[in-house]
């Protein structure tokens, strides 16, 4: 429609249209009513250089001025690996100084780019983030050793449900239905899969039932928002509460009285399936290829959703319904049916993510065990700008950050653990305010389509 399509562009608000869309995040009814002259208006956005500058100052303070002495270790392989890589030892302060210099250089480079009215590419941000992270890890682990594979394995584990939830959210919102009910879908999937897997002893049935449970929640969301035109956010919020109440009630009333049969962690938990060969790759092997079947399904799901959404007729129709339902209707696409079945599909994917809580990690169901993961997944959807790959990366970031805290508190970090726990959320606010900025979702998302 205009220069702000969320699929393609990297730095949406960087240049054009900044003033035009500045105050219009709520309504996108008339995107083409913007005067065309504005599209060529070049407004320099100093957000990225300013953000880089702030982080560079933090780096200078933390790594150089208050730098810690000693050496930092990074253990790169686990004991069971085929190839053993020696632990890397780096002098803390010297490494910090080198990294700080690089960070300042990158910040200066981005400022240079903006002053020339050129966009700051994504890779600059990524490199900056990675360098800062390495610097921080080095600083925090002075005199200790960080088990890198352990850090990453835990991060993947925490990310899996987030990625599933985010994929569900992307599909649902792309077809035009806001999915705030991800939390409910995750929780329903966790609950039902635990019972089914425990009673039948069949993991496959457990996974299928988790998908069915997610679909069931989606049915309610779809029925209310598509048939009865109820505000989708309201249905989503209420569904979360409903599923939370329902599962907690049934847990206290039924599950906790008969744990042996209904909530038996012995039969629920899935075994890890190392992939021969691939699982022996240093670092990557233990992290990616010594996982449960759910995680392997996840890899496939991310790829399939991305491909299907952007390369198939199904995806084109889905996006058309989400962007401009009237136009889609005009060319003969049944808007209500497309929305209904794709929201159901989104529920199935999110439900599968819920199964990871019980079958993949904990092994039994607990009250409110998703603990807000659905909301984090929702944040990942928006953070990832309604793109499956970006949303996956955002979810991985959240998972990594929360696991980083627990690893650092084990090796004894100089920062109080509360501040480490806070970090991912602060970084997200920073990213949303500074880097992502004004994002635009599918135009018709959240709006019921009433055929006239």
């Amino acid at each position, binding site marked *: 429609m205009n220069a702000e399509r969320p699929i393609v562009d990297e730095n949406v608000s960087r240049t054009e249209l900044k003033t035009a869309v500045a105050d219009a995040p709520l309504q996108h009814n008339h995107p083409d009513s913007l005067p065309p002259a504005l599209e060529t208006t070049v407004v320099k956005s100093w957000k990225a250089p300013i953000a880089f500058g702030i982080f560079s100052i933090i780096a200078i303070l933390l790594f150089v001025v208050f730098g810690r002495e000693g050496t930092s270790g990074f253990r790169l392989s686990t004991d069971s690996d085929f190839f053993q890589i020696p632990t890397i030892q780096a002098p803390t302060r010297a490494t910090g100084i080198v990294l700080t210099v690089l960070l300042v250089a990158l910040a200066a480079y981005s400022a240079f780019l903006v002053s020339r009215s050129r966009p700051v590419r994504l890779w600059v941000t990524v490199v900056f983030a990675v360098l800062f992270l390495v610097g921080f890890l080095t600083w925090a682990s002075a005199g200790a050793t960080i088990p890198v594979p352990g850090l990453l394995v835990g991060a993947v584990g925490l990310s899996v449900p987030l990625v599933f939830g985010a994929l569900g959210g992307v599909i649902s919102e792309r077809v035009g239905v*806001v999915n705030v009910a991800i939390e409910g879908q995750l929780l329903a999937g966790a609950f039902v899969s635990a019972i089914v897997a425990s009673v039948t002893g069949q993991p496959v049935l457990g996974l299928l039932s988790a998908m069915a449970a997610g679909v069931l929640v989606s049915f309610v969301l779809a029925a209310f928002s598509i048939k*009865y035109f109820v505000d989708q956010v309201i249905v989503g919020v*209420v569904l979360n509460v409903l599923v939370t109440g329902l599962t907690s009630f049934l847990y206290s009333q039924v599950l906790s009285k008969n744990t042996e049969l209904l909530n038996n962690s012995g039969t629920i938990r899935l075994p890890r399936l190392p992939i021969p060969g691939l699982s022996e790759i240093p670092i990557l092997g233990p992290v990616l290829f010594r996982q449960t079947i759910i995680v392997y399904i996840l890899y496939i799901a991310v790829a399939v959703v991305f491909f299907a959404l952007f390369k198939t007729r199904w995806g084109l129709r889905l996006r058309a319904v989400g962007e401009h339902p009237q136009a889609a209707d005009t060319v003969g696409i049944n808007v209500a049916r497309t929305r209904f079945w794709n929201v159901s599909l989104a529920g199935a994917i999110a439900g599968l993510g819920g199964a990871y809580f019980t079958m993949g990690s904990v092994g039994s169901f607990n009250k409110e065990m998703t603990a807000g993961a659905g909301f984090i997944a929702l*944040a990942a959807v928006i953070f990832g700008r309604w793109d499956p790959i970006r949303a996956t990366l955002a979810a991985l970031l959240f998972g990594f950050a929360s696991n980083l805290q627990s690893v650092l508190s084990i090796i004894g970090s100089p920062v109080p653990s*509360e501040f480490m726990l806070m970090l991912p*959320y602060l970084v997200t606010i920073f990213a*949303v305010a500074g880097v992502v900025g004004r994002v635009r979702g599918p135009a018709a998302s959240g709006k019921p389509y009433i055929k006239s």
Partner: protein
Amino acid sequence: MSQPTVPPVDSGPPVASPPAKPDASTPEPRWHGVMREIVGGSAMISVLAVVLAMLAGGILIALTDDKVSAAAGYFFARPGDLVKAVWDSVSGAYTALFQGAVYNFRRPGFIAGIKPLTETLTFATPLIAAGLGVGLAFRVGLFNIGGRGQMLIAAACAGWVSWSFELPYGLHLILAVAAGIIGGALWGGIVGLLKARTGAHEVIVTIMLNFVALYLISFMLKTPGLLQAPGSNNPKTPAALPTAVFPDLLGPQFNLHWGFIFVIAATVYVWYLLNRSNLGFQFRAVGENPNAARVAGISVNKMYIYAMLFSGGLVGLAGVAQVLGTVTTGFSSGIDAGIGFDAITVALLGRSKPWGIFFAGILFGAFKAGGFAMQASEGIPIDIVVVIQSLIVLFIAAPPLVRAVFRLPKPSGISLRRPRTSTAAVTK
């Protein structure tokens, strides 16, 4: 009214909202409107929604009851047993709920009997305050999920003032309340500021600030000199000084405190703000259509900041009511008690209108008070209350569904309007 959608927006000319200068409408059609409203409209729908939700809750209680499932085992031998078991479990539960929420006939005397009702109002106090905050944000088209964080910060601010200073009665209380409201307002205002300045999505920012506030308060609670009670190792604050505590409203035998009066005042104020003031008009204009509002010369960004300040302040009042009214002996990081999220359902049930939220808050307060009594006496987990509450909101949000269930006629003369999506804010 009959449009099947959208509580957040003050939709059209419903009778429920105070008459906003009905232009040239003669009394007669309006009276017709009232009649239609009662028979097929929102009042009836609300009652029926409550009935439906209670019915569903009853089914759930019966299905999970041990005696019922035992009686179901020999259903064909003695079907009467099953009916009796179902009746016993459901009526027992709802009787306990009523006696815990409104009036307990088993206790001697009026004072002891009416105590549950005052408990209901005590539980309702923070729910109404926080509901007003969330509802006000809804009206501006903002979705404030950050009630938890705003309540925690407000509780910390109010609590700190309540035990750190020695001031005379009255002044101390007012200062503590003001500190809490300002704390909540600033925490909410961050969201508005970020949204206005950088376009950051308020849903993300409020969710994230919830966690930030939680960890910030947890850190302060275990750091001596900040919020931790001196000479203690527990993450708990000192008790509030008596000068800063809300006085009892109906005497020492009841828990109801003056916070309830503050909340009534807040309801009146929000009603005035939204329906009578210039600022409220701009709020609503932005909520209905930000583009149109901007064209009309309203600074949308400024409205976002103001709205989040007000919203955070009102949610903050809920935190204040918790620490100065309900839990005055020192609190920990669970002081918000999930009220920040309950407030969303309260605001939805009240259709984001001040008095609607007020009564929705009292209803949910009754469920909470009754739910604890039910859990204690009948052994039914309080989570059933959450189920019933969410079902009520769900049914009320979809009048056609309720009408279909009860075979009510569709109120005539009301066309199916294209629903507005004030909370499309979530997608952006």
